[in-house]
Each structure stands twice: as C-alpha cells, then as structure tokens.
C-alpha cells in the first residue's frame, strides 16, 4: 500500500540521491585530507631539513651542543619528528624513534640513496646530503610521523560514516513531512472524489488555493464533474421522459386490445390477442420500473423516512414469499440474526428484499436452499441473501446491477432486467450499498448494507 504512494517513492529517491551524494562527498573529503596532509608533511620535512642544516653546520663536531640546539629548536620527540645527522654512516645526532616506526627500517635505510623522499611505515623521511665548505658530506634526515594526521583522518571518517545515516534519517523524515504537506491538497481531493456521487451538484472537489498547477487541476476536474453530471442528468431525464411519453400510446394499445379481447373471436385470434396483451402488460411494467428508477435517482437522500426494523421486514417478506420457494421445492430457511433498526421507505426496501429473494428462487435449482440473515454491525445494518444456486460468473458480477443487463442472452428468461438495478438504486437512495459474492455453480450471496438508525 505505502510502497505505491508517490510520497514514498519521492522520499526514497531523494534519500538514495542524498546517500550517493553524501557518500561521494565523504569519500572525496577523506581522500583530499589524506593527500593534503601527506603533501604538507613532505613539504615541511624538506623545508625543515634545510633549517636543521643551517642550525647544525656550526656544531658538527660538538655532539652535545648539537643535540641541545636541535632539541631546543625542533623538539622532535614532542612533535613526532625524527631527526638524524650523520657523516658517512657515523651518527652525529639522532632523535628518539617516533612511535609506530620500525627501528630496523630506519637502520637499514641509513646511507642509502642521495637525496630522496622515503616512507617508512608512518614516517615520512626526507634525506638530503649537504656539503660543508670544508668538503664534508653530511646526511640530514628529517622525518615526520603522520600518526596524528592518521588519527584525525580516522575520526573524520568515523564522524562521516556515523553522521551520514543520521543526516539521511533526518532528511528522509523532513522530506516525508514536506511531501505530506505539499500533497495534502491532493489527498483532500482524493477523499472528496471518493465521496462524490451523481445527482449532488454541490459536491465538488476542494480546491487547493496554491495558485499553481494543483489549483488548475482541481478546477479542471471540477469542470469535468460538471459535464459528467450534466450528461448523467441528461441520460436520466431521457429515460424518465421516454417512460413518460410511452405511457399514453401504451394506454391506447391496451384499451383497444381489451375491447377486442372482450369480443367473440376464433380461438387463434383470441390466443394472439392474449399474447399481445401479455406483452403490452410487460411493457407497462417496464415503463413503470424505468420511471421508478429515474425517480429513485433524483430522490437521493431528500426524503426523511420512518424508522423500522430491517429484521422484522425481512421476516415478513420471507413469509409472504415462502410459497414461491415451496413451489420449486426450495428451502427458504427461517430468518437468521437479530433486529437492525434502519430509517427509510419501508415499501421500497421491501421491494429490494422481494427482488433479492425472487432472484434467489429463480436462479436456484429444485431442492436448493436460501438463507436470509440480518445483522447490525458497528454503524451499518447488514442483510445477506445466500443461495446455493447457479451463481454469477466474475465477469458479470459488477454488471448485474446495470439496467437491462442479463447474464444469459436468452431473452426467454422472465423479468425485465431491471430488478437488481432497482434494488441498487433504492439502496443507494438510502445511503447504502449492495454487492454480490459468488462462486459459479455453488451459489451467490447478495449483501446489502444500510446506515443503522441512531434515533
């Protein structure tokens, strides 16, 4: 659910980007630091070598004086420095070996090369030969350990490694909050769109007064709703008008036929007249139902009705219909469940029950069983009609509530194809719903839910 929301994806994308950028930045920082400290140490040691030489040149033969002056000026031990002055392998001065430096490596390095920059463990060593005016070749080795720099680098890396996730979490949270805030108008529009039904022209999407594309979107959607509403009302008015206009011609046809049927004719003509009258009656029935449907649609929530018990209504309806079930040897089980007070048009809701039970009887083979149950849930009254009949295939499940929709193309089936459409529009007009669950071949359950009366 959440993994599909745009907020989730945007925040994720943003965090991944931040992670990549942050990691790149940290990596770059650490490398730069390392490079910079190394360069600095190398430059410093080279420069210090010259200073040492200038200091030492006077006292090459005074070892104690040399040591004192060097210690005074360069304090090698305190500053992780290594200084050694030698002449042809003979050491004139050597400071203590800094921690972490292999003494043997220093031993071995003595006397090798001419002027070079070496690295022995953590020690950067600059060796340089100087020549005195007397022609003595003195080797000055000036070293600097980078242990301290390494320590700094380590803590820098650590703070970056630990800091980055913290930063990411903060950024993700901040991003989420920000996204939620900027998407809030959209969420409001979604909620409103979910609640919108036809015949409610006042019900439009709330506009995000942001002055940007979001507001434009809201306006465009509202204009679309206006057009849909107009089209829906037009279609509805059409069926109401059509039903209305058909009434008078139909009355004339029926009247004339009744006159004819009352006279003496040959049996063939009589049978034909009877057939035509039957069809005229069916047409009248359909006109009545169509008119009722459009009436229900425009009635939407306008009428305050009486309160009654849905359970009692169901029981009464079932008693009246038991004989129809008996005729087909179908068991219409006693009503299950308890009372559920609802408010509405009792006759219309009874019509829904009649339609549902009649349907169940029609589509259940002989010997079948139909159960009706009424329950009151948290704030809804629920009624289910369950049969073990032929069921409804999944592809028909939504459409069976459409006007004139028939599962079988066989027109010989009785009924107008309007029964369930009427049931649905009555439920809707009461602020309720009707759905079907079904396993083809095993049976169907029609479930209606109506608001529980709180009065």
């Amino acid at each position, binding site marked *: 659910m959440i993994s599909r929301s745009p907020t989730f994806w945007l925040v994720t994308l943003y965090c991944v980007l931040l992670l990549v950028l942050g990691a790149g930045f940290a990596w770059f920082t650490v490398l730069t630091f390392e490079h910079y400290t190394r360069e600095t140490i190398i430059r410093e040691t080279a420069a210090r070598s010259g200073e040492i030489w200038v200091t030492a040149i006077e006292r090459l033969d005074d070892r104690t004086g040399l040591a004192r002056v060097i210690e005074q000026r360069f304090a090698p031990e305190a500053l992780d420095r290594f200084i050694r002055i030698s002449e042809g392998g003979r050491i004139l001065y050597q400071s203590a070996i800094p921690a972490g430096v292999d003494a043997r490596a220093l031993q071995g390095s003595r006397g090798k090369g001419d002027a070079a920059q070496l690295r022995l463990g953590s020690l950067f060593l600059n060796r340089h030969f100087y020549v005195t005016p007397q022609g003595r070749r003195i080797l000055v080795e000036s070293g600097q350990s980078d242990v301290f720099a390494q320590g700094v680098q380590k803590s820098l890396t650590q703070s970056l490694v630990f800091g980055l996730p913290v930063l990411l979490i903060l950024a993700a949270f901040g991003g989420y909050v920000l996204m939620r805030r900027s998407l809030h108008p959209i969420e409001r529009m979604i909620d409103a769109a979910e609640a919108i039904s036809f015949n409610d022209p006042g019900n439009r999407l709330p506009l995000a007064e942001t002055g940007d594309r979001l507001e434009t979107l809201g306006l465009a959607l509202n204009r679309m709703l206006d057009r849909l509403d107009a089209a829906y009302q037009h279609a509805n008015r059409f069926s109401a008008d059509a039903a209305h206009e058909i009434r008078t011609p139909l009355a004339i046809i029926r009247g004339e036929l009744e*006159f004819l*049927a009352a006279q003496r004719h040959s049996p063939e003509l009589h049978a034909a007249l009877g057939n035509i009258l039957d069809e005229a009656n069916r047409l009248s*029935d359909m006109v009545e139902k169509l008119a009722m449907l459009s009436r229900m649609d425009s009635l939407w929530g306008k009428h305050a009705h009486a309160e009654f018990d849905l359970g009692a209504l169901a029981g009464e309806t079932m008693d009246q219909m038991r004989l129809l079930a008996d005729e087909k040897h179908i068991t219409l089980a006693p009503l299950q469940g308890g009372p559920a007070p609802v408010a509405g048009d009792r006759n219309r809701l009874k019509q829904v029950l009649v339609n549902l039970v009649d349907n169940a009887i029609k589509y259940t083979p002989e010997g079948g069983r139909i159960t009706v149950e009424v329950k009151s849930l948290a704030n809804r009254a629920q009624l289910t009609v369950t049969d073990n009949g032929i069921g409804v295939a999944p592809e028909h499940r939504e459409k069976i509530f459409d006007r004139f929709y028939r599962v079988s193309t066989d027109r010989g089936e009785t009924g107008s194809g309007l029964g369930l459409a009427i049931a649905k529009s009555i439920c809707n007009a009461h602020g309720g719903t009707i759905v079907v669950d079904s396993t083809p071949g095993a049976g169907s359950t029609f479930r209606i839910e109506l608001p529980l009366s709180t009065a």
Partner: protein
Amino acid sequence: MRVLVVEDEAKLLDILLRCLKGEGLLADGVGSAEAALEHVKSFHYDLVILDLQLPDSPGTALLRRIRSERHAMPVLILTARSDIDSKAEGFSAGADDYLTKPFSLAELSMRVHALLRRAPAIQEAILRFANLEINRLTRQVKRGGKRIDLSPKEYSLLEYLSLHAGRALSRSMIVERVWDQSFEGLTNIVDVYIGHLRRKIDEGYEPKLIRTVRGLGYSLDAGEAE
C-alpha cells in the same frame, strides 16, 4: 349517471368513452380545460375523469377551479406521472382517486363504479357462486357444503376475486390489492397462489370457478362457460 372525460389524446378519449358507455353510463368527452369548465358549469355530472396534462392548463389547476365553484362530484385523475409527489398534489387539489397510465379498462371501470356508489357499498356477508360459499364475517369458505381451509393470503385473493366476480382482474391489480406495492412486477406470485386456490376450490368440483383470461388475468365466474 353522467360522466365527463377530460382527455386531450383523442384516441384515448375515444376508448374511455366506449368503455364507460359499455358500462351503461352516459359519457361526454372534452379535450381542453376550458371546454371542461364549460361542461361542468352547464351540465350535471356524477363523475369527472381528468387527465392531468391538458394543452391549455394543468389538470390540477382545472380541478381547483372546479372545486372552488362548489362542484362536489367525485373526480378520478388519470395521469402519466406515478410518483408520490404528483399523487399528493392531485389529492390536495381535490381528487378522489388516481389512476396511472397505462391502466387496464377493467381497473378503470371498477374504480368508476366505486366512486359512483353514493353510499358505502352494502355487501352481503355471505357470497355465493354456484356451490361455493364465502362467509366474509367468519372468513370461512365452503364448497358443496364442505369446509375448505385457506391460508390468509389465499382467502384475501379469493375474496378479492369474488367481490369483483365476472371481471378479469390483472395480475398487477391483484398484487397491489392482496400483497402490496413492493411486490410490483413480481406477478408470478399471483400464478402460484391461483394454482393453490384452484387445487382447494376447484379440484374435484364442478363448475370450475376460477378462470384464466389470457392477457387480462384471472376472474371468478359462476356463469356458463363460453
């Protein structure tokens, strides 16, 4: 008995007039509200059948006009509108009965007769058809002197048929009277009950009383078969 029919649809007006004349009534027909008012002022009518949609004025306006001029004859409204609101409007304008198009002539004539009865109908407590006897007070039914047990619905159906004996009653009329409006369109329930009633009333007895009239419905008829 004289009846005025106000209906602008000429063919329907013709059918209505023929039907009323067939019932032995004098009937005049007009096609506009203005003409209707003229007729009501000039003649005495025992009943007015009024279509609500007239070319010159709404039927309810005409009805209010008629009532305001102190004409108290019963008025039967005929309309293509079947919603409760328009029915309520018709009754508040002073109508006595209401019939929605398309209607069956049988129902129209039954309603006309009911409206024309000045006093409440005095009906026999015991109805007899051939050797069938229906006691409306005790709700007991006997055929050939033998008591027959009927369920309440079966009894209501039989009583409705026998009160209008000789007339074909359509399934929707029966559903509306014996059941209620919510069974609208569920006319097969009538067939089932008629089947049960036949088994109890007619099986093993002569003559057969319950007849099926094709296209029209059912009737209870003690008269000789056609």
